[in-house]
């Protein structure tokens, strides 16, 4: 990609696009240009506005302000169907095809060619083979779609999108479920389509892949445009810094850590060697000591939650072993993990956290009660006490403890789930984005709480996308990128700069080597 690129023809232009939802401005004066014959990557952290931009582009929602021009002409797609007719086709993360139907049928679903006898299956199969040939793919199109790997299914989705005479192809996180070989295959197809003059928008959080395939990168942050860059001209460190809203200093600054107090952990409470799962995390090593906070830092999609899920037994590992207090442990279910003294406060409270109809009190005492079993029921008085204690301690804003938890704001729901895990008295607490959606004042409180907990001997894994938080709280930081742990920073090394540098340059240690 070193040769001078001619300025490609602008295909789709968004200018000054605005979009707001109740309570949040998703897109604020954003410009975006997609060009023919180019792969344009769209990147951003949580809340950046990526998905909203795609939705506006593909007609899934309408912008509040600004212009959209396709080949110079203004457009205003009101539905994905309309956008498709205009030539903008999208392939989503979850392949939106019907798994029980054949490949050929999926490509032509809803617009099957017909003859006097009804649907013309012969034509469907022929044209399906042609559509796939355009992607250099030659498979049996009469086979059920679900009989093929996700990678192939994605190709079929692309073939369907292209068959609609697409000018612009939007790929939304297409590589999340693919292995390295399949990614190469997909990129080969993308390069071919690029050569045919198609414009491609590649939404992804995999740094290496973005650098491999894209010509340009657009970075969004908090709904605003940070910038559009030629990939060849943007060093990784700069990209990371832009995404995280930081300036990458050439000079390695001092540690930001406010609390530099010495906290000695005893030998590792939980020790993991080569723990991994295909499609989730590459095998990694990790030691967690009592009285210590280990932060997990990395970009969105780097595998932080996946790591937590493996530790807590939600996902079963394919490889590796876990030792707890020097004895081997099998963490193959949440119940097993809880028995060993683990606790996990998940990032997505709505699907994995709250029981919506139940009260705040019931949500708080659930883990503790589940651990005690059916017959050792917590007396109501004790439940009330526990609930009150944590409502006060964490500042949960609720009219009373019997309020249905679904009526609380997101931040307060998060606090209640945190209370649930604290109430269960764990020895190791995994916190996944514990301060997301919580107001600034309470954020600091939660961080102080974390430090107080380790003071009492708890081991804590602290996952957060906010660098300063990770830096402030952690004794050690494991740095992740693209579903692997690529580095570990010790007490003296922790700083925002160091973390970003490690994300950019770190490489996964082999599972055989011990962690530094």
């Amino acid at each position, binding site marked *: 990609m070193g040769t001078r690129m001619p300025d490609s023809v602008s295909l789709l232009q968004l200018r000054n696009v605005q979009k707001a939802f109740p309570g949040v401005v998703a897109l604020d004066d954003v410009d975006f240009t997609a060009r023919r014959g180019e792969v344009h990557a769209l990147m951003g952290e949580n809340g950046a506005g990526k998905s909203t931009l795609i939705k506006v582009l593909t007609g899934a929602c309408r912008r509040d302000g600004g212009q959209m021009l396709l080949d110079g002409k203004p457009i205003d797609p009101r539905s994905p169907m309309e956008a498709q007719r205009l030539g903008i086709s999208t392939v989503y993360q979850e392949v939106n095809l019907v798994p029980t139907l054949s490949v050929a049928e999926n490509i032509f679903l809803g617009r099957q060619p017909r003859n006097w006898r009804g649907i013309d299956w012969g034509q469907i199969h022929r044209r399906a083979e042609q559509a796939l040939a355009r992607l250099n793919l030659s498979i049996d199109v009469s086979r059920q779609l679900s009989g093929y790997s996700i990678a192939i299914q994605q190709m079929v989705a692309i073939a369907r999108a292209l068959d609609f005479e697409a000018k612009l192809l939007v790929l939304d996180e297409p590589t999340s479920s693919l292995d390295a070989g399949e990614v190469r295959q997909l990129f080969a197809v993308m390069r071919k389509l690029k050569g045919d003059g198609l414009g491609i928008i590649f939404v992804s959080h995999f740094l290496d892949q973005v650098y491999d395939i894209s010509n340009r990168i657009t970075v969004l942050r908090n709904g605003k445009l940070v910038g559009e860059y030629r990939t060849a001209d943007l060093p990784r460190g700069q990209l990371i810094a832009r995404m995280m809203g930081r300036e990458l200093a050439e000079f390695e600054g001092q540690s930001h850590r406010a609390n530099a107090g010495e906290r000695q952990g005893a030998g590792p409470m939980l020790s993991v060697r080569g723990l991994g799962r295909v499609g989730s995390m590459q095998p990694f090593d990790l030691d967690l000591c009592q009285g210590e906070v280990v932060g997990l830092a990395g970009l969105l999609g780097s595998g932080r939650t996946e790591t937590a899920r493996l530790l807590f037994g939600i996902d079963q590992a394919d490889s590796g072993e876990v030792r707890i207090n020097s004895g081997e442990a099998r963490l193959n279910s949440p119940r097993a993990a809880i*028995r060993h003294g683990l606790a996990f406060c998940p990032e997505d409270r709505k699907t994995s956290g709250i029981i919506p109809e139940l009260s705040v009190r019931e949500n708080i005492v659930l883990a503790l009660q589940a651990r005690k079993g059916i017959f050792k029921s917590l007396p109501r008085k004790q439940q009330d006490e526990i609930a009150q204690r944590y409502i006060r301690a964490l500042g949960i804003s609720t009219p009373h403890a*019997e309020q249905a938890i679904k009526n609380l704001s997101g931040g307060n729901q998060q606090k209640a789930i945190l209370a649930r895990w604290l109430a269960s008295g764990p020895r190791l607490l995994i916190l996944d984005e514990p301060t997301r959606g919580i107001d600034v004042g309470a954020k600091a409180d939660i961080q102080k709480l974390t430090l107080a907990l380790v003071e009492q001997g708890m081991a804590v894994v602290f996952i957060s996308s906010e660098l300063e938080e990770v830096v402030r709280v952690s004794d050690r930081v494991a740095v992740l990128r693209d579903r692997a742990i690529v580095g570990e920073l010790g007490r003296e090394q922790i700083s925002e700069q160091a973390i970003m540098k490690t994300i950019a340059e770190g490489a996964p240690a082999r599972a055989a080597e011990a962690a530094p």
Partner: protein
Amino acid sequence: MTDVQTPTIEPLASSPAAGRGRGRSSQWTKLLWPLLGLALLLLVDLVWVPNFFRIGVTEGRLTGTPIEIFRWSGPEVLLAVGMTLVLATGGVDLSVGAIMALSGAVTAKLAAGLQWPPWGAVLSALGASAAAGAWNGALVALLDIQPIVATLVLMVAGRGIAELISGAAHLKVSGTLFSALGGSPLGIPTEGLVGFGMFAAAAAFTRLTSTGLLIEATGGNRTASRFAGVNVRAVTFLAYAFSGLCAGLAGLLQTADLHGADASKMGLYWELDAILAAVIGGTALTGGRFSLLGAVLGAVLIVTLTTTIQTKVPVEYALVPKAVVVLVVCLLQSETFRQNALAPLRRRAA
């Protein structure tokens, strides 16, 4: 298992004191609907049906329509209680009618056909019913088969097994135990006593142990419950086993009452009654919060409705009003209906 030590925490700077309010008031408002329905129905009875509320005494037993309603409610309440817990876990049990028939057939065959001692027959029938419930539970909780699909199997096969056990002969069940179960040795019908007694026992058990909370959590959000360490498989399994047991008890009572069991007819379509009772009582089809008291009210409502209609017209005519009630209850529970049909009305009223 190490002793659980909850950490001590200093209260955070920003912490309002929370009140102790009665948040369960919404629970009671949900009961308003079946109560209202029942009240309305009784009003209609007062006006429309002569002597509906008359209670007399004969040979030391209470008699009269309200007493009959109490008696017939027994089996319906049993089914409703079992179904409520199954619904609360997020499932459904379509086989309860067939399990009733199975229980009746086993009772009749053992007691009357093979001349077993009555208690032996009763215990065997209950055992068979619990086993049937356990079968359902195993399919749903262990093999992860969808509840409708899983319980459909017993709905079809269970009645066949019941018919097989009964054989062609019409076995007549008799003896002091069965007369006691089907009659009113204590002055009021035993059937009603057993039904409401089971309700009381179930209500006490679910509220005094943590079962109630665990069931509501499992149905409310299975994933979150699993992550919180709830043994969702065990909870689900037990709900189905219990439902089977309740159905068996109901079949037993009916057999005692009718002095026999017609395997092809006993309990036919009763699962639908049970679901309806539970739903009227405020338990959502999707699971989560449940109300046994509500289910009881629902069951009594259905029995009263059938009884009222029966005073004027053949009982089969009760089907149309039942259908209407099912639809109305469903519509009221449906978000879409509430948004599209009721909201405009509310807005106009405001």
